């Protein structure tokens, strides 16, 4: 329904003004620990926003609770810092009420996979037009160092002094299992890679899930160092490129192939390039993407990054709006007088 009272819908549709990073940075002092990976994610996004062709006033950052959830305070856009785990739910309501907005949902692994796991999977299943960035540092930071749902088995923390027992979530596997139409992974050590993945997430019509491997230098320092440090990246990060064979290594000497037991790492020279898996984000069956998500068991073996899956699927809030439009086209705008007389009536 056109909301005549809402001044926000009356915005000039002229060209989007040119902006720079500083236009997207709020005046608030950033209060993450010095050296936190969140800084580089913030920088990457603030630098990217001017390139996305969106208006600041149409951009909303919604977060839950945790270190990552402070993100909205630092963006000069609209923003709501909500409650623990519920940001996908709040964002879903906002997206349904206001399909004109560009909504980013920011949270950590505890926020999104533990207390808010239910909301995340349903937002993905419904395919609500949200850009969901989950900063995965495999630890609870804001509560000062308990194991998280992505912490490895055996992790020694304050709440697991002799080692965490439960098997961690694989965020990409979980997103794919939740019918995500877009699932990607990037990491805080590579601004360019983050920006390309964030851009793809933004351009995706539907729920875009991005796992950002993020270093918590206070409570879980170096969790991803074995794969993200500059000198090891070529051998340890497998950059997924749509339509291209999945190769990695300084000489692209390694590849990924599909074996009966799933995706496996092979030497290209031995197996032949023609037997290396060609990455296709758009296959509707998520099996290949799922196999890729299972390739690295722990963050010290070669790990795929990039877009695992990106398929077209009906977006939820526009489908909801379409139902309303269709009914209104059939019946016209509802009239309260008629509603009150829609049951049997009698006159006295």
């Amino acid at each position, binding site marked *: *329904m056109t*909301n005549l*009272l*809402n*001044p*926000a*819908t009356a*915005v000039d549709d002229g060209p989007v003004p040119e902006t720079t990073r500083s236009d997207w940075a*709020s005046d*608030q002092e950033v209060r993450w620990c010095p050296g936190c990976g969140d800084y580089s994610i913030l920088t990457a996004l603030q630098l990217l926003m001017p390139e996305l062709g969106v208006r*600041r*006033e*149409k951009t*909303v*950052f*919604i977060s839950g609770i945790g270190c990552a959830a402070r993100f*909205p*305070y630092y*963006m*000069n*856009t*609209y*923003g*709501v*810092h*909500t*409650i623990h785990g*519920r940001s*996908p*739910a*709040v964002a*879903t*309501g*906002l*997206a*349904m*009420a*206001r399909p*004109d*907005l560009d909504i980013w949902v920011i949270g950590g692994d505890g926020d999104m996979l533990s207390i808010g796991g*239910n*909301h995340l999977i*349903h937002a993905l299943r419904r395919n609500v037009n949200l850009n969901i960035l989950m900063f995965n540092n495999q630890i609870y930071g804001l509560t000062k160092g308990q194991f998280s749902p992505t912490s490895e088995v055996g992790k020694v923390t304050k709440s697991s002094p002799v080692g965490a027992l439960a098997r961690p979530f694989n965020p990409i596997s979980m997103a794919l299992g939740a019918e995500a139409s877009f699932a990607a992974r990037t990491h805080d050590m590579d601004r360019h890679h983050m920006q390309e993945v964030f851009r793809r997430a933004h351009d995706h019509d539907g729920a875009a899930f991005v796992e950002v491997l993020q270093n918590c230098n206070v409570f879980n320092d170096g969790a991803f160092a074995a794969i993200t440090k500059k000198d090891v990246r070529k051998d340890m990060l497998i950059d997924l490129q749509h339509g291209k064979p999945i190769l990695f290594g300084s000489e692209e000497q390694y590849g990924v192939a599909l074996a009966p037991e799933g995706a496996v790492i092979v030497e290209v020279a031995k197996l032949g390039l023609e037997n290396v898996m060609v990455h296709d984000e758009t296959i509707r069956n998520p099996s290949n993407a799922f196999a890729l998500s299972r390739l690295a068991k722990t963050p010290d073996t070669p790990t795929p990054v990039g877009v695992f899956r990106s398929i077209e699927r009906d977006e939820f809030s526009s489908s909801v709006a379409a139902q*309303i439009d269709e*009914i*209104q086209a059939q019946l*016209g*705008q*509802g009239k*309260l*007088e008629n*509603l*009150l*007389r829609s*049951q*049997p*009536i*009698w*006159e*006295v």
Partner: protein
Amino acid sequence: MTEIGGASSAPALELDEVIIRFAGDSGDGMQLTGDRFTNASAMFGNDLATLPEYPAEIRAPAGTMAGVSAFQVHISDHDITTPGDAPDVLVAMNPAALKSDLSTLVQGGTLIVNKDTFEERNLAKAGYESNPLDGEDLSGYRVIEVAMTTLTKEACAELGVKPRDADRSKNFFALGLLSWMYSRPIEPTIDWIDSKFAGKDMVIAANKAAFSAGHAYGETAELGAQRVVVKAAPLLKGTYTNINGNTALSWGLVAASQLSGLPLFLGSYPITPASDILHELSKHKAFGVTTFQAEDEIAAIGSAVGASYGGSIGVTTTSGPGVALKGEAMGLAVSLELPLIVVDVQRGGPSTGLPTKTEAADLMMAMYGRHGECPMPIVAPRTPADCFDTAIEAARIALVHQTPVMLLSDGYLANGSEPWRLPDVADLPNIDVEFATAFNMVNEDGEESFWPYLRDENLNRPIALPGTPGLMHRIGGIEKDDGTGNVSYDPENHERMVRLRHERVASIPIPDAVLEDGSTGNADLLMVGWGSTWGAITGACRRVRSTGGEVDHVHLTHLNPLPANLGDLLRSYRRVLVPELNLGQLVRILRAEYLVDARPLSKVKGQPFTAGEIQFAIIADINEFSGSPNEPTSTTTKKGVAV
């Protein structure tokens, strides 16, 4: 098909009111039967009130006591306020229904049974060792035994309906019989069958045949019961519809959307007895209503907060267990100072409690059930139709005062129905809402800016909707600086913000409490009620007054803030009695707020008060304090009252 209608030969007995209770197995369609009887009565012009009572199980084992579903309807030729204390007529479709509900029937009342079901298996399931129709147990009642199943099957046989399918129509036989006995118009039921089962010709034919057969049976059989007429009630001139609380509440929310010009957004998770609001609003897309069946109660309110933030009227509907889950998000809405409506259709608790039964024990949760100092306005409708006005009032407070509001309905209001004189839509006052569109501050450096917590004289903050150019800002659940809205841990600021949030709710202007009709202002005893107890308290007060007793009644729609004159009003009475469907929640608030010796009158049986129960308590109170004998006159005090 048998022709139905036509005048009966015998003259009808005129009564001023009748209470009928339909009881049967969950699969027998008793709710539908009661509902149809009610609608026919409404169309006829009676005043009425209903009490549907059904088990939480969808299909408890057939024929058992656990599976009994009942619908009580009170029809009259005068203004009534309750579904009646004790039925004059009980329709028992099987032995379990008889066993479970016979105790409610008045002595000498009429008992209509489907005698086909009184066979060994069903009797055993109900725990009868011998057939009660054969013994002396029912000698105190006028028993009418009808072979409803057999007669229905016979009526349907000529249509080619299979006996098993015909069996499903026996409730229409009962409805036809009762429609004859109580001179109900038949057209509303026939029309309803046609539209309800459109496209299913065989079902239409079977139901009509059963209905006609029941009606004809009444006309031709020697029932030993005279046909009864309850004349139309002298209602105010106007257009009426029969409405239940959940529907009225839904329409009130739609009306609030129209009156404010803001789209309505409902985030809800199915829960008894609130789900019908979700169902009803889902039908009204033509009004731009967006409904969202969320993954859980928390997502339901979370989505409503998000929609409110985007400029809609965010609403979430639930029952007590759901409210418990929504507490943190309500706190967020209080902190964000955003409009939000939380509808709690109360049911028996704690925990799963009595999902399909009524109770009003969530008042303390509504007042105090969130962490921190977290005040929310609370409103409570008093009758099913009043849910319409109260929903608009909740929206008005939420939108004008930028706050989440709790609306406390209950299972009795939700499912009970009454005739409602339709308001003139043009008379409904608009709800004026303004959003911020301009900067409201000049910073030290001379630059214009927007402070999202810079308050106006009503302590409202400016709400700038996302999409508004230039007014980008960040808000959240962390304590905010009074003014800039930036994160603040300053102790002085926090205390100021806590007090401001308190003051924002405490200073909401609401109407003074007014004594209910019939109150003189001279009684020693004041009855103070809230919510659905209005009908029973009103009925009780009328009875007491009719026998010369004096009692006054005030009924609160606004429970937070309370009416400004309430303290003085309470203190002007010698005694204050507060009937509640809980162990005494409002009474504690009144005692705490006003230091008055208000006393509780409690009932927590999953059922509403009867007027008789409250009448008994009033008379007992008057007698205790006056010493003069003034016995209750009603025969309906047998259920007892916990004082």
